[in-house]
Structures are given as C-alpha cells and as structure tokens.
C-alpha cells in the first residue's frame, strides 16, 4: 500500500528502531489528520510521554485528554489498563480491590504470559473500535508503538493468545483484537526508519516479520531525517579545495561538504531500503531545529502533505 490512504484507516500503528523518530511521525500524522477535520487519538504505550509535550501540551498520563483541537493523547500503562479491564469483567470495585490489588495477585498478573501487553493493546484497540451514538469515537487512532522487538511482542499478543488460550474471556478478546489488527481496511502498520546502514537493515527485517510472522497489514515506510540535495558534484569538488580557508569560507565549506557527504550516503541507504522493502518510501526532511517542538512537528506534517 502507498501512503495515500493511510489516514483513512481507523488504526495506524507506528513502529521502528529506537531513536528513529516514531513519536515525531505519530505526532505529525495526528496533526495532518486533524487538519483534515478528523478526531484523532494518539496512544503511547507505557512510555515516557513525548507526543503531548511535542505538541505543546502537558503529558496526559493514563487518562485521555485533548491537547490540541481534534487531537487527544493518552499514555497507556499496564496498571490502569488492568484496572479498567478488570472492572469491566468483575463490575464491582470492591471485588476488584479485593482480588486485583492483592499483592500475590499482582505477582501473578505480571507473570501471566503477555498479560500486560494484552491489556494495553486491548485498551488501545477498544478505543479504535468504540462508538458513541452510532459514530466512531475516533476517526483515527495513532499508536506510537515501542521499538522493534517490543512492538513485535505487543502486536503478536492476540495471535499468541489464540494459540495458547483454549477458551474464556481472554480468548474472546484475542479474537476481536486479531480481527481488527489484521484487517487491511481498518488497520495499517507504518514503519519509520533513518537513511543509515543499521536502521535500514533493521527496518527491512521488521517489515518482513510484520508481513510473514504476524500477517499484519503493512503500511508505508517513512524515511525520516533525509538531508536535502544542496550541492552538485562539481560544487563539492570546488568546496573541498577551500576547506582550510579562513572563516567564514573554510567553516562554511566544511559544513557544506559534511552535508553533501551525508546526503550521498543517505541516498544510497534510501535506495537500499526501497529495494529491500519493495515499495516506495515517504521521505521526511532532516530539520535543523535547535529545540524540537510543535513548529518542527508542523514542518514534518507539511512534508507529509500529499504523501499520506
């Protein structure tokens, strides 16, 4: 799938290697969707919250809060997800407290295979399909998912439960969760990468795992922090001759040659990634912001315009 219909999905999961800019891409996708009049929820998964602060708001914590018109955020953590889910099952708070706040039971809940992941994913997917007065509560839920290995664990949870849990409420939940996650009409898993050797390798592996191992609908691949093409080969040669010139020329030439070399390497990696994943990439510009905030996110959203 190209990026063009990405924001028409109900659920977009954003993942990739650590440090590639998943939160920025999640925030920019939300901003773009909000510009198109959509109501968006961005869910972070048991993280040090980044999206709300990036958009200029306070962290939301475990309770959904609107940070900009049309954009709400939440940080889903296992403890609150458990409480919400358990209360849906047992209905009575006193019973919940007696059972689930028991110290031993807490141990148990932490060790039950993938329970934390199930609850967090369940909470997010529940938001993605919930309706108020016949209308979806959210037009789009963007999940700022954990990095590679943990994301595969998280997204693989319903599948793993279906394989191991023979019956009961947990299995019924796993069934609808898997149905939503694997539905290419409602869901897409978007990847974020950087134009560098190791991130490209890891992105290609992750893309293959999402397709083959998890059988989930693969969305677009964002190539973040792509340097611009600013200097021709001829100019680079001329600038190399003046690297040691006194300021301002020498330092400016150095900066330019570093930038140009970075661009050449990045282009080679972009080509490599495109070949490995077998589909076009959505490049996002490398931006020189001293501090990373809402203005930077807006610029990324601008760059996405017309591509998603």
């Amino acid at each position, binding site marked *: 799938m190209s990026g063009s219909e990405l924001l028409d999905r109900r659920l977009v999961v954003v993942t990739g290697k650590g440090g590639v800019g998943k939160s920025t891409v999640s925030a920019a996708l939300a901003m773009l969707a909000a510009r198109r009049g959509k109501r968006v929820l961005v869910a972070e998964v048991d993280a040090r919250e980044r999206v709300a602060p990036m958009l200029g708001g306070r962290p939301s914590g475990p309770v959904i809060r609107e940070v900009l018109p049309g954009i709400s955020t939440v940080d889903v953590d296992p403890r609150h997800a458990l409480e919400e889910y358990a209360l849906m099952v047992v209905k009575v708070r006193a019973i919940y407290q007696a059972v689930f706040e028991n110290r*031993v039971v807490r141990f148990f809940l932490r060790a039950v295979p993938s329970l934390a992941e199930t609850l967090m994913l369940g909470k997010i997917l529940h938001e993605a399909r919930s309706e108020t007065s016949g209308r979806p509560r959210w037009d789009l839920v963007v999940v700022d998912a954990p990095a590679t290995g943990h994301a595969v664990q998280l997204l693989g949870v319903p599948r793993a439960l279906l394989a191991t849990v023979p019956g009961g409420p947990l299995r019924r939940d796993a069934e609808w969760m898997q149905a939503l996650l694997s539905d290419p009409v409602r869901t897409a898993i978007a990847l974020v990468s950087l134009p560098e050797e190791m991130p490209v390798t890891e992105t290609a592996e992750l893309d293959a795992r999402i397709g083959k191992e998890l059988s989930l609908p693969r969305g677009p691949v964002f190539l973040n922090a792509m340097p611009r093409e600013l200097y021709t080969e001829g100019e680079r040669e001329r600038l190399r001759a003046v690297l040691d010139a006194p300021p301002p*020329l020498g330092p400016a030439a150095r900066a330019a040659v570093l930038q140009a070399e970075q661009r050449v390497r990045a282009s080679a990696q972009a080509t490599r990634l495109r070949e490995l994943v077998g589909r076009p990439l959505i490049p996002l510009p490398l931006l020189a912001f001293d501090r990373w905030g809402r203005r930077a996110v807006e610029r990324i959203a601008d760059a996405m315009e017309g591509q998603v």
Partner: protein
Amino acid sequence: MGALLRSLEGKRVAIVVGSGGVGKTSVSAAIALSRAMEGGRTLVCTIDPARRLATALGLGSLGNAEALVPAEAFARSGLAPKGQLFAMMLDVKRTWDDLVARHAPDAATRDRILGNRVYQQVSGALAGSQEYMAMEKLYELSTERDYDLIVLDTPPTSHALDFLEAPDRILDFVGNETARKLFAPAIDAGRFGARLLQAGTGFVAKTLSRFTGSDVLSDVGDFLGQFQGMYDGFKERASAVRTLLTQPEVGFVLVASPSPLSVDEALFFHDHLRKAGMPVAGAVSNRVTPDLWPFPGGLPGTEPVAEALAAALASAGPGTEDLAARLALTLQEHQAFARSDAREVERMRRGAPGPHVAVPRLPGDVHDLSGLAALAAHL
C-alpha cells in the same frame, strides 16, 4: 587511549547501557576490539535481534556460541591485533533452557518444565526476560571462561531498570509460596488443594479465572509446582549475579546520543546504578555534531561568504552568489545541530561525573572492523 578506555583498564567486565539507537553495539564492539588489539582475549556479547554486531564483525551468525573473529576479517581492514576478539549473540530462550537444565533435579522435571506453555511464554516473551538472561549469561561467561574482558551490549530496554530488577521480579513470583498455593490446584488437588480453594483463596482464584479462563490459571499452577524444587538454585544464582555487578572488576558504560531523551535515560540509569552501588566506568556522548564556528561574533550571512568565495575561487562566475547563499544557510543549520548537541553533551557531563568522552559523528556508519577501530580511537 581516551578517558573511557583508560578507566576500563583492569576491568574484566564492561556493561554497556543506554537507550535504543545510540550506538551501544558499536561502542561495545569497539571496546572489545581495542583491548584485543593490545593483546587481550576479549568477548563482546550482544542481544540485539537485528544481528547488527554480526554484520559489524563480518560473522554470518552468532547464536549463543562464542565465535572468534577470523584473522582474514582483521586483515581486510588492515588491522593486526595482538590478542583475540570473540563475539556472540545471546539467545534468550536457549539461555533459559540451559539454566533450567542446570537446576532441574532430574531429566523428567526438566522436560516437563521445558514443555510447559507458561514456561515457554516466560522464557520467550515476558517483559524483563531478556534482561534477566543477559545478566545470567554474563555471570556464566565471567565465571566459567577466561576472557580478559567481556563486554555486554545490553538490549534496547524500554525500562532501563529491568536489568537490576527483572531477576528478582521474576523469581519473586515463581518462588512465591502463596502464589503457588493459589494457582496450583492441579498439583495439590489430590492433597489439600481442593480445601484451600474452597476457603478464602478460592474467591480470588475463581474471580481470576473469570478473567483469564481457568486453563491459564492451572497452567500457571503446573509451572509453579514444577519450578518449586529449582527455586533456591535460581535465587542463589541471581543473587550471585547481583554481587558480581557490584565488584570493582565490573564497569558500567553509559552511552547516549546528544538528544534530550537519550540523555535523560542515561542519567536516570546512572543515578540508579550509583544508588545500587554498581560501578560506573564512564559515559559516552556518541555522534556529536562538531562545532565549526568557535569564533566570536555571529554566523556570517550570504555576503561575506560570497566575497570570500569569489576571492578564493578566482573565477567568481555567475553561480557564486547562489552558492554563497546555500553555504551560509548550511553553516547556520550545521551550527543549530552543533549547539543543541553541545547542550546535551554538557548535561551528560554534569549529570554523570567521571570519565566522559564525546565521539564526533563519524563519516559513515560504523559497520566494519576499521570503523570500529576509528570509533575506539575516540573512546
């Protein structure tokens, strides 16, 4: 030799920690390589599923076995080490299985545990399991092998403290008496379990089974029952690991890129290591943008650059003004990165006092031995 490598002299174990994507694997391999160059017998152990180290070391696959980096790989990079460099990739599942085999009283118990569904989840997917096994493997390597230096490249953990806490957290559960009684109706049923279930705890178990389904509960019960005899062995070993981590022969190395998040994470880890009495050998600020304008006065605009350009190139030609504008812009952008990086490096230096090295962004990714050697020169 830089401040970090000097601080690691005399250490037998280096544990490299930091958030994902900051270059931990490269730093780990560079540390091990550097000692091997000087004649040491060193091992770098990584856990990363992307097999980055394998690529970096020119090895096909690593899979829980220590493999000598072949002489040809060094020769290709123009390096002649006096010692030997080994590399391995940690296989979490296999490390668990080995640990069970080590502690199981007999083959039948071992096989029952290895076949239990809950065990398979605990050993494969449980949060903290990777971190626990990384520490376990490190202990095994440091007590049963004779490397001069073992460098552990830690997994890109979402919760840095999992290293310190995961073993106890996991063991507290598997060894918990009450838990065992609560979730072991299957093994205790013949004896007093049925009665226990009816009294008090039955309410808890019943409510939980409405929640998870009763099969999950009895799987957990089976697992806990089988694990009972091995608990002490596991516990002893986990405590030995913890003791090892406080020894002066061990050094933690914090790695961060100059981004606010990565520095936050490194400093958070630093404080907890200090509190836990674990020795921090030093910190690395990796991939720092160099400062190209350490001069008084603001950055130049287009005009002075254009003049200098015209003078230097003799033939000013038509495109000069345009090129000068781009040069001035590129320098401004470069310095914006450099300023932001310098701010984070300074925060790292203050927050984690002690040996600190700032590694400039090197041309190209570090993905081969010569790249690692170039990196080591900055450590």
